């Protein structure tokens, strides 16, 4: 058990360190996050004001927190649908991964989470700081929001990695080309995760649709918790929902990996 934990810890650290090599990319991401953030500020603030200063519990200050925290998480939460293991499944390298004394799914997700956690340093924290300094934002009234929020962010990152594994990488055992799935994931996940507009201002039917998917667990719920939009009991409920999605998505991903291993055809030789 201890040895297993150590292996995955090393994978996590390796992912983290690998990402640290791409500082220029992180800077580019920060520029993009900030630019999009300022555009979101313009249009979402105008919406809140047009609604009379308050919209589904959002005032301008809380909307600002939502915008900058979600922009900051964008480098870490996988809403693009790209994961290295998808390429390895496609070109057959995964056959080598199956020979290793490691679970293929868990190893892929752990490495991905490590990379994502690193991105919080050059992209996540600066986005929130820039937003806070340039635009201003609301802070939660109770300090537990930060603690629960941090847990929720890590959970959200993990749910996103596990979902990309399930929806984009694992089908690769059966399909040769998964690029279409990746694009589909990218299109749907951002919208339903609440990246452009909080899902709470969706029409009710669309809000229900969003909540029936794992996507809000990646971004919307962590933002709700750390911005103090929900109180402690609300936060604990959202954390439970995130955990349930992680368990569900992880279990189906594991089943697909096992079935895929029996089905795996390596093309070429």
């Amino acid at each position, binding site marked *: 058990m201890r040895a297993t934990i150590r292996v995955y810890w090393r994978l996590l650290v390796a992912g983290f360190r690998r990402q640290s090599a791409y500082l*220029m*990319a992180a800077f580019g*991401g920060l520029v*993009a996050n900030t630019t999009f953030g*300022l555009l979101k500020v313009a249009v979402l603030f105008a919406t809140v004001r*047009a609604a009379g200063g308050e*919209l589904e519990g959002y005032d301008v200050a809380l909307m600002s927190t939502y915008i900058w925290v979600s922009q900051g998480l964008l480098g870490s939460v996988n809403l693009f649908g790209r994961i290295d293991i998808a390429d390895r499944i496609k070109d057959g390298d995964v056959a080598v991964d199956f020979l290793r004394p490691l679970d293929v799914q868990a190893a892929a997700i752990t490495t991905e989470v490590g990379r994502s956690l690193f991105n919080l340093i050059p992209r996540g924290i600066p986005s929130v700081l820039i937003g806070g300094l340039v635009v201003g934002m609301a802070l939660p009234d109770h300090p537990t929001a930060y603690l629960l929020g941090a847990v929720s962010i890590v959970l959200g990152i993990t749910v996103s990695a596990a979902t990309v594994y399930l929806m984009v990488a694992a089908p690769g055992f059966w399909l040769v080309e998964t690029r279409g799935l990746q*694009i589909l994931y990218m299109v749907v996940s951002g*919208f339903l995760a609440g990246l452009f507009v909080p899902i709470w201002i*969706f029409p009710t039917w669309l809000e229900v649709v969003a909540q029936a998917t794992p996507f809000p667990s990646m971004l919307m719920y962590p933002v709700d918790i750390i911005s103090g939009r929900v109180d402690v009991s609300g936060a604990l409920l959202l954390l439970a929902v995130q955990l349930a999605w992680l368990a569900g998505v992880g279990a189906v991903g594991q089943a697909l990996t096992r079935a895929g291993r029996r089905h795996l055809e390596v093309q070429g030789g």
Partner: protein
Amino acid sequence: MADGLTLRARMRPYRAVLASRARSQSSYRASFALDLASSMLVGVIELAEIWVLFHNVVELGGLEFSQILLVFGLADLCFSLADMTFGHCDNLPMYLRAGTLDVFYLRPQPLLLQLVTSDISLRRLARAGVGAVALVAGLALNDIAWSPAHVLLLVLAIVSGYATFAGMFVWAGGVQFFLIEGAETTNAFVYGGRYAATQPASVWNRPLWAVFGFFFPMAFTGFLPALWLLGVEPPYGMPDWVGWCAPLAAVWTWTMALLSWRFGVRHYQGGGG
């Protein structure tokens, strides 16, 4: 006549390449169908992002939803068409890193033309379709006092908008020669520009107008021409006819684009292969 023949002869390799790309994309039917569907969904969701806001308020930046449909339709149609033809410039960092760009230098065709014709994403037609439908809906739902001038501006706006977005892709491509790993920096303005272009730009503050109104003239691809068609006053005391400057915006973008491309190509020293 002789000139016409040589031009045709000169275009033949490009036509052959493009036709082969089109065939290769549609040959995997299931994958192509999924591509088309995803691509259409991109357009639908982009529209939904705006519709969700108008679900909560009647008017945003002085425009109603039917009016913003016109802005969205113009901008998104132009962006999708530019993305279909010039979006491939986005792959430049990949070629630069892998050193495969050098292959292009071995062929007797200009680099930029080769890059543009090296791929044409047919699937993006589906997305352009969403923009076109929004545009037609916007034109039908609003009371436009049609005159020959209105038709002329509509055509000018579409052509200039397409050219402006295409110029943005080329500008970004030129900058990639310097950035390589930092491709996302230009995404902020190319894709951020698309996002900006479909908004009611009257909600922007002055710094945003400086960046997305004029420097990257996104407001000229949809918002400002739409205002003239609708007979709505532009914000910040701009003159009524500012929407007619869309072609100037296209010329300005292409000036930047070609300069950036030229600097980029001159800076490039090969992949070392």
